[in-house]
Protein backbone atom coordinates (compact mmCIF):
# COMPACT_ATOMS: atom_id res chain seq x y z
CA UNK A 1 0.00 0.00 0.00
CA UNK A 2 3.04 2.22 0.09
CA UNK A 3 2.49 3.30 -3.48
CA UNK A 4 -1.04 4.51 -2.82
CA UNK A 5 -0.36 8.19 -3.18
CA UNK A 6 2.18 7.77 -5.96
CA UNK A 7 -0.32 7.72 -8.85
CA UNK A 8 1.02 10.51 -11.04
CA UNK A 9 0.02 9.34 -14.49
CA UNK A 10 -3.42 8.01 -15.35
CA UNK A 11 -2.05 4.57 -16.01
CA UNK A 12 -0.58 4.28 -12.55
CA UNK A 13 -3.89 5.34 -11.07
CA UNK A 14 -5.69 2.64 -13.01
CA UNK A 15 -3.19 0.11 -11.82
CA UNK A 16 -3.82 1.29 -8.30
CA UNK A 17 -7.55 0.97 -8.77
CA UNK A 18 -7.07 -2.57 -10.07
CA UNK A 19 -4.94 -3.39 -7.11
CA UNK A 20 -7.66 -2.16 -4.79
CA UNK A 21 -10.34 -4.07 -6.64
CA UNK A 22 -8.35 -7.27 -6.39
CA UNK A 23 -7.70 -6.94 -2.70
CA UNK A 24 -9.84 -4.37 -0.90
CA UNK A 25 -8.16 -2.15 1.62
CA UNK A 26 -8.61 -3.75 5.03
CA UNK A 27 -8.08 -2.14 8.37
CA UNK A 28 -7.87 -3.88 11.72
CA UNK A 29 -11.40 -2.74 12.59
CA UNK A 30 -12.83 -3.84 9.25
CA UNK A 31 -11.24 -7.25 9.79
CA UNK A 32 -12.66 -7.48 13.26
CA UNK A 33 -16.10 -6.51 12.04
CA UNK A 34 -15.99 -9.24 9.40
CA UNK A 35 -15.02 -11.83 11.99
CA UNK A 36 -17.76 -10.62 14.30
CA UNK A 37 -20.41 -10.87 11.60
CA UNK A 38 -19.32 -14.43 10.85
CA UNK A 39 -19.92 -15.39 14.49
CA UNK A 40 -23.54 -16.46 14.76
CA UNK A 41 -23.74 -16.63 18.56
CA UNK A 42 -22.37 -13.11 18.87
CA UNK A 43 -25.03 -11.87 16.46
CA UNK A 44 -27.78 -13.61 18.45
CA UNK A 45 -26.42 -11.91 21.55
CA UNK A 46 -26.33 -8.56 19.78
CA UNK A 47 -29.91 -9.03 18.57
CA UNK A 48 -31.13 -9.66 22.13
CA UNK A 49 -29.19 -6.64 23.38
CA UNK A 50 -30.69 -4.39 20.69
CA UNK A 51 -34.17 -5.73 21.43
CA UNK A 52 -33.89 -5.10 25.17
CA UNK A 53 -32.40 -1.66 24.56
CA UNK A 54 -35.30 -0.75 22.28
CA UNK A 55 -37.68 -2.02 24.95
CA UNK A 56 -35.94 0.17 27.48
CA UNK A 57 -36.03 3.30 25.33
CA UNK A 58 -39.61 2.79 24.18
CA UNK A 59 -40.91 1.75 27.61
CA UNK A 60 -43.18 4.83 28.03
CA UNK A 61 -44.74 4.10 24.62
CA UNK A 62 -45.07 0.33 24.49
CA UNK A 63 -45.80 -0.52 28.10
CA UNK A 64 -49.55 -1.20 28.43
CA UNK A 65 -49.81 0.41 31.89
CA UNK A 66 -47.64 2.67 34.06
CA UNK A 67 -45.36 0.52 36.20
CA UNK A 68 -47.09 1.51 39.44
CA UNK A 69 -50.71 1.30 38.25
CA UNK A 70 -52.67 -1.08 40.43
CA UNK A 71 -55.62 -3.05 39.10
CA UNK A 72 -57.73 -3.92 42.12
CA UNK A 73 -59.91 -6.30 40.13
CA UNK A 74 -56.92 -8.48 39.26
CA UNK A 75 -54.60 -8.98 42.20
CA UNK A 76 -52.02 -11.78 42.01
CA UNK A 77 -53.54 -12.94 38.77
CA UNK A 78 -51.65 -15.77 37.07
CA UNK A 79 -50.37 -15.32 33.49
CA UNK A 80 -53.17 -15.64 30.97
CA UNK A 81 -50.86 -15.04 27.94
CA UNK A 82 -53.66 -12.97 26.37
CA UNK A 83 -56.13 -10.39 27.64
CA UNK A 84 -55.43 -7.33 29.75
CA UNK A 85 -52.58 -8.84 31.82
CA UNK A 86 -50.77 -11.41 29.62
CA UNK A 87 -48.00 -12.05 32.15
CA UNK A 88 -50.30 -11.74 35.14
CA UNK A 89 -50.18 -9.22 37.96
CA UNK A 90 -48.18 -8.96 41.16
CA UNK A 91 -49.32 -9.02 44.78
CA UNK A 92 -50.78 -5.52 44.63
CA UNK A 93 -52.26 -5.87 41.14
CA UNK A 94 -49.56 -4.20 39.04
CA UNK A 95 -49.21 -5.49 35.49
CA UNK A 96 -46.20 -7.83 35.23
CA UNK A 97 -45.60 -7.15 31.52
CA UNK A 98 -45.43 -3.40 32.10
CA UNK A 99 -43.07 -3.84 35.03
CA UNK A 100 -40.85 -6.16 32.98
CA UNK A 101 -40.65 -3.57 30.18
CA UNK A 102 -39.79 -0.76 32.61
CA UNK A 103 -37.31 -3.05 34.36
CA UNK A 104 -35.30 -3.29 31.14
CA UNK A 105 -34.53 0.42 31.49
CA UNK A 106 -32.70 -0.09 34.74
CA UNK A 107 -30.61 -3.03 33.52
CA UNK A 108 -29.57 -1.30 30.30
CA UNK A 109 -28.91 2.04 31.99
CA UNK A 110 -26.80 0.42 34.70
CA UNK A 111 -24.95 -1.84 32.29
CA UNK A 112 -23.96 0.92 29.87
CA UNK A 113 -23.84 3.91 32.21
CA UNK A 114 -21.72 2.36 34.91
CA UNK A 115 -19.23 1.04 32.38
CA UNK A 116 -18.93 4.50 30.87
CA UNK A 117 -18.03 5.73 34.34
CA UNK A 118 -15.57 2.86 34.80
CA UNK A 119 -14.00 3.77 31.46
CA UNK A 120 -13.69 7.43 32.40
CA UNK A 121 -12.04 6.64 35.73
CA UNK A 122 -10.03 3.51 34.94
CA UNK A 123 -8.37 4.38 31.63
CA UNK A 124 -6.90 7.78 32.64
CA UNK A 125 -5.58 6.42 35.93
CA UNK A 126 -4.08 3.36 34.25
CA UNK A 127 -2.68 5.50 31.44
CA UNK A 128 -1.02 7.96 33.83
CA UNK A 129 0.44 5.15 35.94
CA UNK A 130 1.68 3.24 32.90
CA UNK A 131 3.08 6.20 30.98
CA UNK A 132 4.74 8.22 33.69
CA UNK A 133 5.71 5.31 35.96
CA UNK A 134 7.84 6.15 38.96
CA UNK A 135 6.32 7.29 42.19
CA UNK A 136 2.82 8.02 40.82
CA UNK A 137 2.73 4.50 39.46
CA UNK A 138 3.80 2.81 42.67
CA UNK A 139 1.29 4.78 44.76
CA UNK A 140 -1.56 4.11 42.36
CA UNK A 141 -0.75 0.45 42.20
CA UNK A 142 -0.54 0.16 45.96
CA UNK A 143 -4.01 1.66 46.14
CA UNK A 144 -5.22 -0.76 43.47
CA UNK A 145 -3.83 -3.66 45.50
CA UNK A 146 -5.84 -2.59 48.55
CA UNK A 147 -8.96 -2.34 46.39
CA UNK A 148 -8.28 -5.85 45.12
CA UNK A 149 -8.00 -7.17 48.66
CA UNK A 150 -11.52 -5.93 49.35
CA UNK A 151 -14.21 -8.51 48.59
CA UNK A 152 -15.85 -6.62 45.74
CA UNK A 153 -19.51 -7.39 46.27
CA UNK A 154 -19.23 -6.55 49.97
CA UNK A 155 -17.64 -3.23 49.04
CA UNK A 156 -20.48 -2.37 46.66
CA UNK A 157 -23.04 -3.29 49.30
CA UNK A 158 -21.19 -1.16 51.85
CA UNK A 159 -21.13 1.87 49.54
CA UNK A 160 -24.80 1.44 48.66
CA UNK A 161 -25.66 1.38 52.35
CA UNK A 162 -23.75 4.63 52.76
CA UNK A 163 -25.24 6.38 49.71
CA UNK A 164 -28.78 5.07 49.97
CA UNK A 165 -30.95 3.55 47.28
CA UNK A 166 -31.37 4.96 43.80
CA UNK A 167 -30.21 4.60 40.22
CA UNK A 168 -27.42 7.17 40.23
CA UNK A 169 -26.02 5.74 43.46
CA UNK A 170 -25.79 2.34 41.79
CA UNK A 171 -23.74 3.98 39.01
CA UNK A 172 -21.45 5.53 41.58
CA UNK A 173 -21.04 2.35 43.63
CA UNK A 174 -20.18 0.25 40.57
CA UNK A 175 -17.94 3.00 39.19
CA UNK A 176 -15.95 3.32 42.41
CA UNK A 177 -15.36 -0.40 42.71
CA UNK A 178 -15.17 -1.35 39.02
CA UNK A 179 -12.40 0.87 37.63
CA UNK A 180 -9.61 -1.11 39.30
CA UNK A 181 -9.46 -3.94 36.78
CA UNK A 182 -9.48 -1.54 33.85
CA UNK A 183 -6.80 0.71 35.36
CA UNK A 184 -4.56 -2.30 35.91
CA UNK A 185 -5.09 -3.53 32.36
CA UNK A 186 -4.46 -0.10 30.79
CA UNK A 187 -1.31 0.29 32.85
CA UNK A 188 0.02 -3.10 31.78
CA UNK A 189 -0.71 -2.36 28.12
CA UNK A 190 0.98 1.04 28.33
CA UNK A 191 4.02 -0.40 30.08
CA UNK A 192 4.47 -2.93 27.29
CA UNK A 193 3.77 -0.49 24.46
CA UNK A 194 6.00 2.24 25.88
CA UNK A 195 9.12 0.25 25.04
CA UNK A 196 8.12 -0.57 21.47
CA UNK A 197 10.09 0.81 18.55
CA UNK A 198 7.26 2.84 17.02
CA UNK A 199 6.86 4.76 20.28
CA UNK A 200 10.59 5.42 20.45
CA UNK A 201 10.44 6.59 16.84
CA UNK A 202 7.55 8.94 17.56
CA UNK A 203 9.37 10.29 20.57
CA UNK A 204 12.52 10.80 18.51
CA UNK A 205 10.45 12.81 16.03
CA UNK A 206 9.51 15.11 18.87
CA UNK A 207 6.03 13.94 19.90
CA UNK A 208 5.02 15.20 23.35
CA UNK A 209 3.47 13.03 26.06
CA UNK A 210 -0.14 13.83 25.17
CA UNK A 211 0.42 13.13 21.49
CA UNK A 212 2.18 9.89 22.38
CA UNK A 213 -0.63 8.84 24.70
CA UNK A 214 -3.55 9.70 22.44
CA UNK A 215 -2.09 8.98 19.00
CA UNK A 216 0.19 6.05 19.65
CA UNK A 217 -0.39 4.28 22.95
CA UNK A 218 -4.14 4.48 23.44
CA UNK A 219 -5.17 3.32 19.93
CA UNK A 220 -2.94 0.28 20.32
CA UNK A 221 -4.33 -0.55 23.75
CA UNK A 222 -7.91 -0.07 22.62
CA UNK A 223 -8.98 -3.62 21.81
CA UNK A 224 -8.25 -5.17 25.23
CA UNK A 225 -9.91 -2.14 26.82
CA UNK A 226 -13.03 -2.59 24.69
CA UNK A 227 -13.19 -6.30 25.51
CA UNK A 228 -12.83 -5.68 29.24
CA UNK A 229 -15.55 -3.05 29.21
CA UNK A 230 -17.86 -5.34 27.25
CA UNK A 231 -17.43 -8.05 29.86
CA UNK A 232 -17.96 -5.43 32.55
CA UNK A 233 -21.48 -4.73 31.29
CA UNK A 234 -23.02 -8.06 32.34
CA UNK A 235 -21.08 -7.80 35.61
CA UNK A 236 -22.70 -4.42 36.28
CA UNK A 237 -26.12 -5.79 35.35
CA UNK A 238 -25.50 -8.64 37.76
CA UNK A 239 -24.44 -6.23 40.51
CA UNK A 240 -27.55 -4.09 40.09
CA UNK A 241 -29.76 -7.17 40.11
CA UNK A 242 -28.01 -8.46 43.23
CA UNK A 243 -28.32 -5.12 45.04
CA UNK A 244 -31.97 -4.72 44.13
CA UNK A 245 -32.56 -8.37 45.00
CA UNK A 246 -31.56 -7.73 48.61
CA UNK A 247 -33.46 -4.46 48.65
CA UNK A 248 -30.68 -1.86 48.60
CA UNK A 249 -30.58 -1.15 44.86
CA UNK A 250 -33.29 0.61 42.95
CA UNK A 251 -35.86 2.83 44.66
CA UNK A 252 -39.38 1.30 44.69
CA UNK A 253 -41.96 1.58 43.21
CA UNK A 254 -39.62 1.77 40.21
CA UNK A 255 -39.18 -1.82 39.03
CA UNK A 256 -35.95 -3.56 38.15
CA UNK A 257 -35.65 -7.21 37.26
CA UNK A 258 -33.44 -7.93 40.25
CA UNK A 259 -35.82 -6.11 42.57
CA UNK A 260 -38.80 -8.09 41.23
CA UNK A 261 -36.98 -11.42 41.52
CA UNK A 262 -35.89 -10.58 45.05
CA UNK A 263 -39.19 -9.23 46.29
CA UNK A 264 -41.20 -12.20 45.06
CA UNK A 265 -38.74 -15.05 45.65
CA UNK A 266 -40.37 -15.60 49.05
CA UNK A 267 -43.65 -16.42 47.31
CA UNK A 268 -42.17 -18.76 44.74
CA UNK A 269 -44.14 -21.73 46.06
CA UNK A 270 -47.51 -20.02 45.49
CA UNK A 271 -46.81 -17.47 42.73
CA UNK A 272 -43.84 -18.85 40.79
CA UNK A 273 -44.24 -16.50 37.81
CA UNK A 274 -43.63 -13.33 39.81
CA UNK A 275 -39.96 -14.13 40.42
CA UNK A 276 -39.31 -16.46 37.48
CA UNK A 277 -40.15 -14.00 34.66
CA UNK A 278 -37.65 -11.37 35.79
CA UNK A 279 -35.12 -14.13 36.49
CA UNK A 280 -35.42 -15.37 32.92
CA UNK A 281 -34.98 -11.80 31.66
CA UNK A 282 -31.79 -11.27 33.68
CA UNK A 283 -30.37 -14.62 32.61
CA UNK A 284 -31.16 -13.93 28.95
CA UNK A 285 -29.63 -10.46 28.93
CA UNK A 286 -26.48 -11.60 30.72
CA UNK A 287 -26.17 -14.54 28.34
CA UNK A 288 -26.54 -12.15 25.41
CA UNK A 289 -23.76 -9.90 26.67
CA UNK A 290 -21.52 -12.92 27.32
CA UNK A 291 -22.03 -14.23 23.78
CA UNK A 292 -21.42 -10.80 22.32
CA UNK A 293 -18.36 -10.23 24.50
CA UNK A 294 -16.89 -13.61 23.52
CA UNK A 295 -17.46 -12.82 19.85
CA UNK A 296 -15.95 -9.38 20.21
CA UNK A 297 -12.86 -10.74 21.93
CA UNK A 298 -12.32 -13.40 19.27
CA UNK A 299 -12.84 -10.78 16.57
CA UNK A 300 -10.49 -8.20 18.02
CA UNK A 301 -7.77 -10.60 19.05
CA UNK A 302 -7.92 -13.85 17.10
CA UNK A 303 -4.82 -15.18 18.84
CA UNK A 304 -6.51 -15.61 22.19
CA UNK A 305 -9.47 -17.43 20.74
CA UNK A 306 -10.85 -19.47 23.60
CA UNK A 307 -13.95 -20.97 22.09
CA UNK A 308 -14.01 -22.51 18.69
Amino acid at each position, binding site marked *: MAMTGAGVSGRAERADALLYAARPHRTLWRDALNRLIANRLALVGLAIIVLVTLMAILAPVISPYPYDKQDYTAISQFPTWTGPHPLGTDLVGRDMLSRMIWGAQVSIAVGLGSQLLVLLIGVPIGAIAGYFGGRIDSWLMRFVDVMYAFPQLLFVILIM*AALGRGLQNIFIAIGITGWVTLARLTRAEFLALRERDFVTAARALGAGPWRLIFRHLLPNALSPIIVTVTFGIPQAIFTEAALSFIGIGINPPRPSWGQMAGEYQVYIQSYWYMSIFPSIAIALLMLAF*TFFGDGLRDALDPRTRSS*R
Partner: protein
Amino acid sequence: MAQYIVRRLLLVIPTLIAISLITFIIMHATPGSPLQPQAANANPLPPEAQKALAKRFGLDKPLWQQYLVYLKNIWTLDFGISYQYRTRQVREIIANTFPVSMELGAMAMVVAIVIGLPLGVLAAVNQNGPIDYLCSIIATLGVSLPNFILALFLILLFVLLLPVIPRTGGWSSPIDWVLPTIALSLGPMGILARYTRASMVEVMRQDFVRTAQAKGLSNRQVIVRHVLKNGLIPPITIIGPMFAAIGTGSPFVEAIFRVPGMGRFYVDSLIARDYPMIMAVTLIYGALLAVMNIVVDIVYGLVDPRIRLS
Protein backbone atom coordinates in the same frame (compact mmCIF):
# COMPACT_ATOMS: atom_id res chain seq x y z
CA MET B 1 10.13 -21.35 52.18
CA ALA B 2 9.08 -20.88 55.82
CA GLN B 3 10.55 -17.41 55.65
CA TYR B 4 8.51 -16.66 52.54
CA ILE B 5 5.28 -17.80 54.17
CA VAL B 6 5.94 -15.76 57.30
CA ARG B 7 6.69 -12.66 55.26
CA ARG B 8 3.56 -13.02 53.17
CA LEU B 9 1.45 -13.58 56.29
CA LEU B 10 2.92 -10.46 57.88
CA LEU B 11 1.99 -8.48 54.77
CA VAL B 12 -1.64 -9.48 55.31
CA ILE B 13 -1.75 -7.32 58.44
CA PRO B 14 -1.33 -3.91 56.74
CA THR B 15 -3.84 -4.99 54.08
CA LEU B 16 -6.40 -5.85 56.74
CA ILE B 17 -5.73 -2.58 58.56
CA ALA B 18 -6.35 -0.72 55.31
CA ILE B 19 -9.59 -2.65 54.75
CA SER B 20 -10.74 -2.03 58.30
CA LEU B 21 -9.97 1.69 58.01
CA ILE B 22 -11.90 2.06 54.74
CA THR B 23 -14.82 0.09 56.13
CA PHE B 24 -14.78 2.11 59.34
CA ILE B 25 -14.84 5.41 57.47
CA ILE B 26 -17.62 4.42 55.06
CA MET B 27 -19.62 2.91 57.92
CA HIS B 28 -19.51 6.05 60.01
CA ALA B 29 -20.17 8.26 56.98
CA THR B 30 -23.38 6.31 56.46
CA PRO B 31 -26.45 8.22 57.65
CA GLY B 32 -28.44 6.57 60.40
CA SER B 33 -27.46 5.60 63.88
CA PRO B 34 -27.28 2.31 65.73
CA LEU B 35 -28.82 4.10 68.70
CA GLN B 36 -32.23 4.31 67.04
CA PRO B 37 -34.77 1.49 67.06
CA GLN B 38 -34.79 -0.61 63.88
CA ALA B 39 -38.57 -0.86 63.44
CA ALA B 40 -40.12 1.62 61.01
CA ASN B 41 -42.12 4.47 62.61
CA ALA B 42 -40.97 3.50 66.09
CA ASN B 43 -40.55 6.38 68.52
CA PRO B 44 -36.93 7.45 68.92
CA LEU B 45 -35.24 6.42 72.14
CA PRO B 46 -35.18 9.09 74.86
CA PRO B 47 -31.88 11.02 74.94
CA GLU B 48 -30.80 9.53 78.28
CA ALA B 49 -31.26 6.00 76.95
CA GLN B 50 -29.30 6.93 73.81
CA LYS B 51 -26.52 8.34 75.94
CA ALA B 52 -26.37 5.22 78.07
CA LEU B 53 -26.27 2.98 74.98
CA ALA B 54 -23.60 5.14 73.34
CA LYS B 55 -21.49 4.84 76.46
CA ARG B 56 -21.92 1.10 76.58
CA PHE B 57 -20.93 0.70 72.90
CA GLY B 58 -18.12 3.23 73.24
CA LEU B 59 -19.75 5.51 70.67
CA ASP B 60 -19.37 8.58 72.88
CA LYS B 61 -15.63 8.77 72.22
CA PRO B 62 -14.12 10.60 69.23
CA LEU B 63 -14.00 8.54 66.04
CA TRP B 64 -10.23 8.07 65.88
CA GLN B 65 -10.24 6.81 69.44
CA GLN B 66 -13.06 4.37 68.64
CA TYR B 67 -11.03 3.06 65.74
CA LEU B 68 -7.87 2.58 67.77
CA VAL B 69 -9.81 0.84 70.54
CA TYR B 70 -11.31 -1.45 67.93
CA LEU B 71 -7.91 -2.27 66.48
CA LYS B 72 -6.57 -3.01 69.95
CA ASN B 73 -9.52 -5.27 70.75
CA ILE B 74 -9.45 -7.39 67.61
CA TRP B 75 -5.83 -8.15 68.40
CA THR B 76 -7.25 -10.31 71.20
CA LEU B 77 -10.07 -11.55 68.90
CA ASP B 78 -12.58 -9.42 70.77
CA PHE B 79 -14.98 -8.22 68.08
CA GLY B 80 -17.31 -6.48 70.51
CA ILE B 81 -21.03 -6.83 71.16
CA SER B 82 -23.52 -6.97 68.32
CA TYR B 83 -25.70 -3.85 68.27
CA GLN B 84 -28.73 -5.62 66.90
CA TYR B 85 -28.61 -8.71 69.11
CA ARG B 86 -27.59 -6.79 72.15
CA THR B 87 -26.98 -9.75 74.39
CA ARG B 88 -24.67 -11.57 71.99
CA GLN B 89 -20.97 -11.23 71.33
CA VAL B 90 -20.02 -10.84 67.67
CA ARG B 91 -17.41 -13.54 68.18
CA GLU B 92 -20.09 -15.96 69.32
CA ILE B 93 -22.35 -15.19 66.33
CA ILE B 94 -19.43 -15.63 63.94
CA ALA B 95 -18.40 -18.86 65.63
CA ASN B 96 -21.91 -20.22 65.05
CA THR B 97 -22.40 -19.05 61.49
CA PHE B 98 -18.97 -18.98 59.84
CA PRO B 99 -18.56 -22.80 59.87
CA VAL B 100 -21.91 -23.16 58.10
CA SER B 101 -20.82 -20.76 55.36
CA MET B 102 -17.50 -22.54 55.05
CA GLU B 103 -19.21 -25.92 54.84
CA LEU B 104 -21.46 -24.69 52.05
CA GLY B 105 -18.55 -23.01 50.27
CA ALA B 106 -16.33 -26.08 50.57
CA MET B 107 -19.01 -28.41 49.24
CA ALA B 108 -19.71 -26.11 46.31
CA MET B 109 -15.99 -25.84 45.59
CA VAL B 110 -15.52 -29.62 45.69
CA VAL B 111 -18.42 -30.11 43.26
CA ALA B 112 -17.00 -27.40 40.99
CA ILE B 113 -13.53 -28.96 40.96
CA VAL B 114 -14.66 -32.58 40.61
CA ILE B 115 -16.85 -31.75 37.61
CA GLY B 116 -15.17 -28.64 36.19
CA LEU B 117 -11.57 -29.84 35.89
CA PRO B 118 -12.25 -33.19 34.15
CA LEU B 119 -14.78 -31.50 31.91
CA GLY B 120 -12.21 -28.97 30.77
CA VAL B 121 -9.59 -31.68 30.21
CA LEU B 122 -11.97 -33.89 28.22
CA ALA B 123 -13.13 -30.91 26.18
CA ALA B 124 -9.56 -30.04 25.25
CA VAL B 125 -8.75 -33.63 24.32
CA ASN B 126 -11.88 -34.04 22.19
CA GLN B 127 -12.04 -30.61 20.64
CA ASN B 128 -15.32 -29.90 18.84
CA GLY B 129 -16.78 -33.17 20.13
CA PRO B 130 -19.98 -33.45 22.18
CA ILE B 131 -18.09 -33.10 25.48
CA ASP B 132 -16.55 -29.90 24.20
CA TYR B 133 -20.02 -28.52 23.48
CA LEU B 134 -21.23 -29.57 26.91
CA CYS B 135 -18.21 -27.86 28.39
CA SER B 136 -18.89 -24.60 26.61
CA ILE B 137 -22.59 -24.70 27.53
CA ILE B 138 -21.76 -25.17 31.22
CA ALA B 139 -19.03 -22.54 31.00
CA THR B 140 -21.34 -19.98 29.40
CA LEU B 141 -24.19 -20.67 31.81
CA GLY B 142 -21.82 -20.62 34.75
CA VAL B 143 -20.43 -17.26 33.77
CA SER B 144 -23.73 -15.61 32.91
CA LEU B 145 -26.28 -17.03 35.36
CA PRO B 146 -26.23 -15.19 38.69
CA ASN B 147 -26.35 -17.70 41.52
CA PHE B 148 -29.51 -16.25 43.05
CA ILE B 149 -31.31 -16.58 39.70
CA LEU B 150 -30.08 -20.15 39.35
CA ALA B 151 -31.32 -20.81 42.90
CA LEU B 152 -34.84 -19.72 41.91
CA PHE B 153 -34.77 -21.91 38.79
CA LEU B 154 -33.60 -24.87 40.89
CA ILE B 155 -36.42 -24.39 43.38
CA LEU B 156 -38.96 -24.15 40.55
CA LEU B 157 -37.58 -27.29 38.91
CA PHE B 158 -36.77 -29.61 41.80
CA VAL B 159 -39.18 -28.52 44.49
CA LEU B 160 -42.27 -27.41 42.60
CA LEU B 161 -42.31 -29.12 39.18
CA LEU B 162 -40.61 -32.45 39.97
CA PRO B 163 -40.87 -32.74 43.71
CA VAL B 164 -37.54 -34.53 44.21
CA ILE B 165 -36.66 -32.36 47.15
CA PRO B 166 -39.42 -31.99 49.72
CA ARG B 167 -38.63 -28.53 51.06
CA THR B 168 -36.30 -25.59 51.02
CA GLY B 169 -34.88 -23.83 53.99
CA GLY B 170 -32.81 -24.94 56.91
CA TRP B 171 -29.52 -26.73 57.20
CA SER B 172 -30.39 -29.69 59.40
CA SER B 173 -30.11 -32.66 57.04
CA PRO B 174 -28.08 -33.42 53.90
CA ILE B 175 -31.17 -33.00 51.71
CA ASP B 176 -31.07 -29.29 52.58
CA TRP B 177 -27.50 -29.07 51.32
CA VAL B 178 -28.16 -30.21 47.76
CA LEU B 179 -29.76 -27.18 46.11
CA PRO B 180 -27.64 -24.45 47.75
CA THR B 181 -24.51 -26.39 46.82
CA ILE B 182 -25.56 -26.74 43.18
CA ALA B 183 -26.61 -23.09 42.99
CA LEU B 184 -23.28 -21.95 44.35
CA SER B 185 -21.09 -24.35 42.37
CA LEU B 186 -22.19 -23.73 38.78
CA GLY B 187 -20.40 -20.38 38.45
CA PRO B 188 -16.94 -21.59 39.56
CA MET B 189 -17.51 -24.87 37.69
CA GLY B 190 -18.03 -22.99 34.43
CA ILE B 191 -15.03 -20.73 34.92
CA LEU B 192 -12.84 -23.68 35.91
CA ALA B 193 -13.91 -25.81 32.94
CA ARG B 194 -13.31 -22.98 30.51
CA TYR B 195 -9.97 -22.06 32.01
CA THR B 196 -8.78 -25.67 32.10
CA ARG B 197 -9.73 -26.19 28.49
CA ALA B 198 -7.92 -23.06 27.33
CA SER B 199 -4.81 -23.97 29.31
CA MET B 200 -4.76 -27.56 28.03
CA VAL B 201 -5.18 -26.44 24.42
CA GLU B 202 -2.32 -24.01 24.87
CA VAL B 203 -0.02 -26.74 26.20
CA MET B 204 -1.02 -29.17 23.45
CA ARG B 205 0.38 -26.74 20.88
CA GLN B 206 3.83 -26.71 22.51
CA ASP B 207 6.91 -28.24 20.96
CA PHE B 208 7.56 -30.75 23.73
CA VAL B 209 4.15 -32.28 23.11
CA ARG B 210 4.98 -32.68 19.44
CA THR B 211 8.28 -34.26 20.45
CA ALA B 212 6.49 -36.68 22.75
CA GLN B 213 4.16 -37.65 19.91
CA ALA B 214 7.07 -37.95 17.50
CA LYS B 215 8.94 -40.38 19.67
CA GLY B 216 5.95 -42.69 19.42
CA LEU B 217 4.12 -42.28 22.71
CA SER B 218 0.46 -43.17 22.61
CA ASN B 219 -2.02 -40.32 22.76
CA ARG B 220 -3.02 -41.35 26.23
CA GLN B 221 0.55 -41.24 27.48
CA VAL B 222 1.16 -37.84 25.92
CA ILE B 223 -1.93 -36.41 27.59
CA VAL B 224 -1.39 -37.95 31.02
CA ARG B 225 2.37 -37.56 31.28
CA HIS B 226 3.05 -34.34 29.44
CA VAL B 227 -0.03 -32.23 28.86
CA LEU B 228 -1.87 -32.72 32.15
CA LYS B 229 1.11 -31.89 34.31
CA ASN B 230 1.60 -28.54 32.63
CA GLY B 231 -1.96 -27.78 31.70
CA LEU B 232 -3.38 -28.07 35.20
CA ILE B 233 -1.09 -25.47 36.76
CA PRO B 234 -3.06 -22.36 35.70
CA PRO B 235 -6.46 -23.72 36.81
CA ILE B 236 -5.01 -24.58 40.23
CA THR B 237 -4.07 -20.97 40.72
CA ILE B 238 -7.61 -19.67 40.34
CA ILE B 239 -9.13 -22.13 42.81
CA GLY B 240 -8.00 -20.12 45.83
CA PRO B 241 -9.47 -16.72 44.97
CA MET B 242 -12.52 -18.56 43.70
CA PHE B 243 -13.07 -20.18 47.06
CA ALA B 244 -12.88 -16.78 48.71
CA ALA B 245 -15.29 -15.41 46.10
CA ILE B 246 -17.76 -18.21 46.77
CA GLY B 247 -17.69 -17.19 50.39
CA THR B 248 -18.57 -13.61 49.54
CA GLY B 249 -21.06 -14.57 46.84
CA SER B 250 -23.10 -16.69 49.16
CA PRO B 251 -25.27 -14.09 50.97
CA PHE B 252 -27.91 -14.44 48.25
CA VAL B 253 -27.92 -18.21 48.20
CA GLU B 254 -27.93 -18.26 51.98
CA ALA B 255 -30.88 -15.88 52.05
CA ILE B 256 -32.94 -17.78 49.47
CA PHE B 257 -32.42 -21.19 51.06
CA ARG B 258 -32.47 -19.77 54.60
CA VAL B 259 -29.07 -21.24 55.36
CA PRO B 260 -27.95 -20.06 58.83
CA GLY B 261 -24.57 -18.86 57.54
CA MET B 262 -22.56 -15.70 57.99
CA GLY B 263 -23.29 -14.14 54.60
CA ARG B 264 -26.86 -13.17 55.29
CA PHE B 265 -25.84 -11.33 58.43
CA TYR B 266 -23.91 -8.83 56.36
CA VAL B 267 -26.88 -7.11 54.78
CA ASP B 268 -28.95 -7.24 57.97
CA SER B 269 -26.06 -5.73 59.90
CA LEU B 270 -25.65 -2.92 57.38
CA ILE B 271 -29.31 -2.01 57.56
CA ALA B 272 -29.24 -2.11 61.36
CA ARG B 273 -25.94 -0.10 61.46
CA ASP B 274 -24.50 -2.95 63.49
CA TYR B 275 -20.93 -1.64 63.24
CA PRO B 276 -19.12 -4.47 65.01
CA MET B 277 -20.83 -7.13 62.86
CA ILE B 278 -20.08 -5.25 59.62
CA MET B 279 -16.42 -4.86 60.57
CA ALA B 280 -16.09 -8.48 61.63
CA VAL B 281 -17.66 -9.93 58.48
CA THR B 282 -15.67 -7.64 56.15
CA LEU B 283 -12.40 -8.43 57.91
CA ILE B 284 -13.02 -12.17 57.92
CA TYR B 285 -13.75 -12.18 54.19
CA GLY B 286 -10.73 -9.95 53.55
CA ALA B 287 -8.48 -12.25 55.58
CA LEU B 288 -9.89 -15.29 53.81
CA LEU B 289 -9.15 -13.75 50.42
CA ALA B 290 -5.61 -12.80 51.45
CA VAL B 291 -4.79 -16.21 52.95
CA MET B 292 -6.23 -18.00 49.91
CA ASN B 293 -3.98 -15.96 47.63
CA ILE B 294 -0.95 -16.96 49.70
CA VAL B 295 -1.96 -20.62 49.63
CA VAL B 296 -2.27 -20.39 45.85
CA ASP B 297 1.19 -18.90 45.48
CA ILE B 298 2.68 -21.62 47.66
CA VAL B 299 0.91 -24.40 45.78
CA TYR B 300 1.97 -22.75 42.53
CA GLY B 301 5.59 -22.89 43.63
CA LEU B 302 5.25 -26.52 44.70
CA VAL B 303 3.69 -27.83 41.49
CA ASP B 304 5.83 -25.77 39.14
CA PRO B 305 9.49 -25.82 40.06
CA ARG B 306 10.23 -23.18 37.43
CA ILE B 307 8.63 -20.64 39.74
CA ARG B 308 10.85 -19.52 42.59
CA LEU B 309 9.16 -18.03 45.60
CA SER B 310 10.96 -15.01 46.85
